[in-house]
């Protein structure tokens, strides 16, 4: 077989992780660079000492131990598939981003309590640094020499930056027509950046085939053969939000959806905190946000369907432009199980929402954040979101990466000579 080169390592290298298990049928596998179940093609997830039936109820870590940890995702390392000394190895140490109390936006939308979890504060300015940090550690353990991914843009930058810090080669794949700033970021850290003529789904397909080919041997694709580890990184968003709220899960949360991986793992993170007794057990609602031009999950939700029919994306929210979302069925399940919803917004609504968040809270989101805040607004107007409940909305990326989306309306209020008279005439008397 071409792949299966990396040998399976001892569970010590993965901290509390004890194996992989199929999310669909529960079949167990040893820890390794595998990502799909041989029985049913279901996604493999990391299983822990405490996730099995033998769990004795004693949490592997206390709130106090977590609080004494570093101000990054490694404060949760006891809950992640990483070795105890992970923080000492070169990595970008992402996470512990701000949870901003958004009173101005709350007032504007008529909400009582709203926070923005602002992941634009990560090292490469998107939440992708979280998932890459875990996948990088797995790549090192499996002995992969090249860190790779298929990407809608943000992941590419996170991967090339992490590889640079770790001293690995990088080769990342993107649709050729991405936003300029994302292309700049993905290439500035070095490594190779390959633009594919096609959509993200076609990039994904290409990378999946590369994995099964001798050409891709010894390559760690963070979102393909390292997917189980990668995906666990998103749980840290759930942990941080709960800890930053004073060890409490919010009543409702709005999360953007491309493949649906992040949303699925935030739900897993909340459930783990409850299971481990680190937070009080309480109901929470998960709302999913998509762009209308790429809303296969929202369409399925609204039609009451179980099956997510893929679409060909057409939206300015390019980071969310995945027409064939692998975790789409789980997003549907989670939205339904938690009494949440899946909603979508138009490109115009996305731009309005980027401006709204910037104008009210001083947070400049990329288009994905516009999708999420736009959906927050729409859900509130439709009465699907409880205005009295404690609400968190995610901003997963930085507005500087999608400047074009809001550039057309951006110009100086006035251009004048440097004189008080000119200022009085043009600015003061004109306003």
């Amino acid at each position, binding site marked *: 077989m071409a792949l299966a080169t990396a040998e399976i390592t001892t569970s010590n290298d993965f901290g509390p992780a004890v194996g992989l298990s199929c999310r669909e049928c529960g079949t167990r596998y040893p820890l390794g660079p595998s990502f799909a179940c041989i029985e049913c093609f279901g996604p493999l997830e990391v299983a822990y000492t405490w996730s099995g039936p033998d769990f004795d109820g004693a949490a592997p870590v206390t709130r106090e131990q977590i609080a004494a940890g570093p101000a990054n995702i490694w404060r949760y390392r006891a809950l992640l598939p990483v070795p105890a000394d992970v923080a000492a190895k070169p990595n970008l140490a992402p996470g512990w981003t701000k949870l901003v109390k958004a009173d101005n936006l709350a007032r504007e939308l008529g909400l009582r309590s709203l926070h923005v979890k602002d992941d634009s504060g990560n090292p490469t300015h998107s939440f992708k640094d979280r998932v890459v940090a875990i996948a990088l550690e797995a790549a090192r353990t499996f002995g992969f020499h090249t860190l790779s991914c298929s990407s809608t843009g943000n992941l590419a930058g996170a991967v090339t930056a992490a590889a640079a810090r770790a001293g690995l080669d990088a080769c990342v794949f993107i649709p050729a027509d991405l936003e300029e700033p994302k292309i700049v970021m993905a290439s500035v850290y070095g490594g190779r950046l390959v633009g594919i003529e096609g959509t*993200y789904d076609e990039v994904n*397909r290409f990378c999946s085939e590369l994995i099964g080919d001798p050409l891709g041997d010894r390559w760690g694709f963070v979102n393909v053969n390292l997917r189980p580890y990668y995906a666990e990184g998103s749980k840290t968003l759930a942990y941080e939000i709960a800890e930053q709220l004073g060890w409490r899960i919010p009543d409702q949360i709005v999360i953007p959806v491309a493949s649906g991986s992040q949303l699925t793992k935030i739900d897993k993170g909340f459930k783990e905190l409850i299971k481990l007794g680190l937070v009080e057990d309480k109901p929470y609602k998960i709302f999913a946000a998509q762009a209308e031009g790429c809303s296969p999950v929202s369409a399925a939700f609204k039609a009451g369907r179980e099956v997510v029919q893929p679409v060909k994306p057409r939206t300015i929210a390019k980071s969310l432009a995945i027409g064939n979302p692998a975790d789409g069925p789980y997003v549907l399940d989670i939205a339904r199980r938690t009494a949440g919803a899946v909603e979508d917004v138009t490109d115009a609504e996305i731009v309005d929402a980027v401006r709204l968040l910037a104008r009210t809270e001083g947070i400049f989101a990329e288009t994905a954040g516009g999708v999420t805040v736009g959906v927050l607004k729409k859900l509130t107007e439709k009465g699907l979101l409880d205005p009295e409940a404690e609400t968190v909305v995610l901003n997963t990326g930085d507005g500087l990466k999608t400047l074009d989306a809001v550039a057309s309306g951006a110009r100086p209020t006035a251009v004048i000579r440097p004189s008080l008279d000119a200022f009085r005439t043009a600015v003061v008397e004109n306003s």
Partner: protein
Amino acid sequence: MSVSVRIPTILRTYTDGAAEVTGEGATLRDVLQKLDADYPGIGARILDETGSIRRFVNVYVGEEDVRFVDGLDTPTPDGAQVSVIPAVAGG
């Protein structure tokens, strides 16, 4: 019609490690039936109990995801490339 079928790593135990095998059939359904005759058991990995393509598998004929065409009834012209690919996380 003779087509080539790309086999994902997790199914290569059925094909003796071969990454690509020859197939036969006028539609994807026929091709998968023949594939299962040649490599017994492989069909049930790709199709579920109801005979539909499993939820977490993507099947392509040429460049197209068959869900954009006719699913299992998608025509497989001579020389077509069929690919079976597990779903992966987004990026």
